[in-house]
């Protein structure tokens, strides 16, 4: 019951209460606790997923960099490998988890290749839910939920392939998907624009909602910023962890005989936009959408399913995974 609306004097000597000090208190607490971020990369092998991760986080965070002793081989089935790193920048600590999906799209028959990934994502939601409903629960529930899934589109220049559409159609319902055009240095600017246009049409035709989703724009300001981003998606990216000398400066790039592609040069590729979106401006928002929308939807589904089929018939979820499989995953 709101009794009144009172405006205090702003920061005058006599009138200053100090309520705005709560911002500093929050910042302090956040710095002390640190942050978590879980990012998944999906795409055929050879599209530069590991390199892009290393470029994004300016360190060897990818699976390849960690396990160099393993032989490079394409797995027979899709594997899901998750590696965590503690990184720190200007006093801000982050636990970054990179989830790799080797084997995706590499088989001859790729039917239902999205299923193991969907299962993994749901398993993380399940784990969080189980901890949340505990009687005696941890002060801070460890968050292993996938916040963002980067989907790598091969630079064919034509349009989306059926596997791309299948994957994004299913997964955009449970996780934030950010599609990128991989190895974009093989496309000219005109080819790139044409490709993006086709992709946009394909996404709209299949009603695929990629991040940032239109329906979650909070206000007009949000919408304005997000519209600009939506116009640019998918970002055409180039990854590199090699530095070269360009015009007297050391820059990350790819050196070819006809020139050097500068990764962070926005006239060369859109890596910088991707990095800004994922890390510098929208990281908190990505996490919020995951926890307050995707996770909540999972929770509602999960809680309702216990009431819907008392006769023991297995339910087929919206995600296409039969119920008994979901349950067995929890054990």
């Amino acid at each position, binding site marked *: 019951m709101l009794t009144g609306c009172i405006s205090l004097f702003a920061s005058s000597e006599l009138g200053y209460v*100090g309520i705005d*000090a709560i911002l500093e208190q929050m910042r302090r607490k956040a710095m002390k606790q640190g942050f978590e971020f879980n990012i998944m990369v999906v795409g055929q092998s050879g599209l530069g997923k590991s390199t892009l991760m290393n470029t994004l986080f*300016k360190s060897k965070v990818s699976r390849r960099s960690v396990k160099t002793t393993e032989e490079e081989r394409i797995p027979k089935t899709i*594997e*899901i490998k*998750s590696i965590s790193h503690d990184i720190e920048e200007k006093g801000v600590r982050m636990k970054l988890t990179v989830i790799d999906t080797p084997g995706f799209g590499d088989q001859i028959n790729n039917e239902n290749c999205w299923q193991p990934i969907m299962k993994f994502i749901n398993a993380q939601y399940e784990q969080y839910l189980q901890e949340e409903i505990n009687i005696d629960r941890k002060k801070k529930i460890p968050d292993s939920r996938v916040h963002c899934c980067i989907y790598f589109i091969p630079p064919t220049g034509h349009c989306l392939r059926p596997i791309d559409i299948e994957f994004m159609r299913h997964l955009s319902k449970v996780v934030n998907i950010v599609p990128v055009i991989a190895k974009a240095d093989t496309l000219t600017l005109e080819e790139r624009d044409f490709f993006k246009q086709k992709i946009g049409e394909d996404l709209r035709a299949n009603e695929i909602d990629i991040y940032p989703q239109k329906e979650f724009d909070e206000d007009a300001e949000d919408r304005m910023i997000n519209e600009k981003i939506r116009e640019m998606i998918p970002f055409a990216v180039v990854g590199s962890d090699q530095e070269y000398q360009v015009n007297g400066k050391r820059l990350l790039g790819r050196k070819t005989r006809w020139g050097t592609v500068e990764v962070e040069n926005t006239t060369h590729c859109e890596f910088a936009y991707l990095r800004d979106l994922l890390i510098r401006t929208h990281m*908190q928002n990505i996490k919020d959408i995951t926890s*307050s929308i995707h996770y909540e939807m999972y929770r509602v589904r999960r809680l309702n399913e216990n009431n819907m089929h008392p006769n023991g018939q297995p339910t087929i979820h919206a995600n296409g995974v039969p119920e008994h499989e979901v349950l067995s995953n929890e054990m």
Partner: protein
Amino acid sequence: MVEEGEGARGVPLSGHVGFDSMPDQLVNKSVNHGFCFNILCVGETGLGKSTLMDTLFNTKFEGEPTQHNQPGVQLKSNTYELQESNVRLKLTVVNTVGFGDQINKEDSYKSIVEFIDTQFEAYLQEELKIKRTLHSYHDTRIHACLYFIAPTGHSLKSLDLVTMKKLDSKVNIIPIIAKSDAISKSELTKFKIKITSELVSNGVQIYQFPTDDETVAEINSTMNGHLPFAVVGSTEEVKIGNKMVRARQYPWGTVQVENENHCDFVKLREMLIRVNMEDLREQTHTRHYELYRRCKLEEMGFKDTDPDSKPFSLQETYEAKRNEFMGELQKKEEEMRQMFVQRVKEKEAELKEAEKELHEKFDRLKKLHQDEKKKLEDKKKSLDDELNGFKQKKTAAELLQAQTQQAGSSATLKKDKERKK
């Protein structure tokens, strides 16, 4: 197949990535949502609780000073929207009305505990809902309890000890000595020591300002030593030198609220608002609320089982909640139906009453009408009788007249006849 990395490894960065903006991103999100802070003021009537709130937040909150004749302890809560630079705060101030006024104070603490539990319960219910909106939920849980101690100068009252003991596991208690300008400096030191030792010996857990963060550890631990804060509140301004300051003016001097030599008001404001507001909110959520939740769920018969049977406990929990909810729904429906039936009965009875009245009225009117009619008829009859009588008299008179005339005429005729003879 899922493989987990063995714990997280520290990795050095070779350039600026940009996630150092995360605290800013988090803060911006909170600024957009606004903040919530709920203070409970517990203390006897007349200890200056409302004045202190006004002084702390530099504004005049509504309210009349309460009377001393309340039959029990009631909690009155008011919510205000305050804004300072870009921070919007939804502040709720809850006052205990009538605390300490009763002759028998045994149950005084009960309504306070009940109120705090109700707020926890509301949050728990929201958290357990299937479709929930936690991020836009208006949190009414009490974040800080200011306990006002009367400035007797001796020791804590037993009511204070009992109440604080009942509250210390439910809320962050910050004890303060109210109207401390009634105590001299030397008495104050002794008073504070006595209070602190009494709290310790009775096992009352008051809120400790956190000392785990180096930025504020020093100031917080110093302030911990100054508890309980001796405060003076005032919204009146007095000119001291060439400045207007908030103060209380006595013939022998002026007590300045914001002068740290005069009272601990500045310390209280510093600790409560400027340094530890966020920690108070966090402690409420992670400690007091969790304790309430654990106890409540255990009370309802749930307990954590091994990981193997987890799916069932989840199902059971929600099945039970659902049954409870359906049961309550049914009960409410039944109640409503009964109330409806009752109302209908009452209305029927009312209508019957009205109908009866109307009949009676009608009968009365009819009788009245009949009486009138009879009266009129009687009158008419009597008039008719009179008329008849009159007519008879008239005819009789006429007859008589005719007779006398005839007699007269016959007499005249006789006389004429005799004359003629």
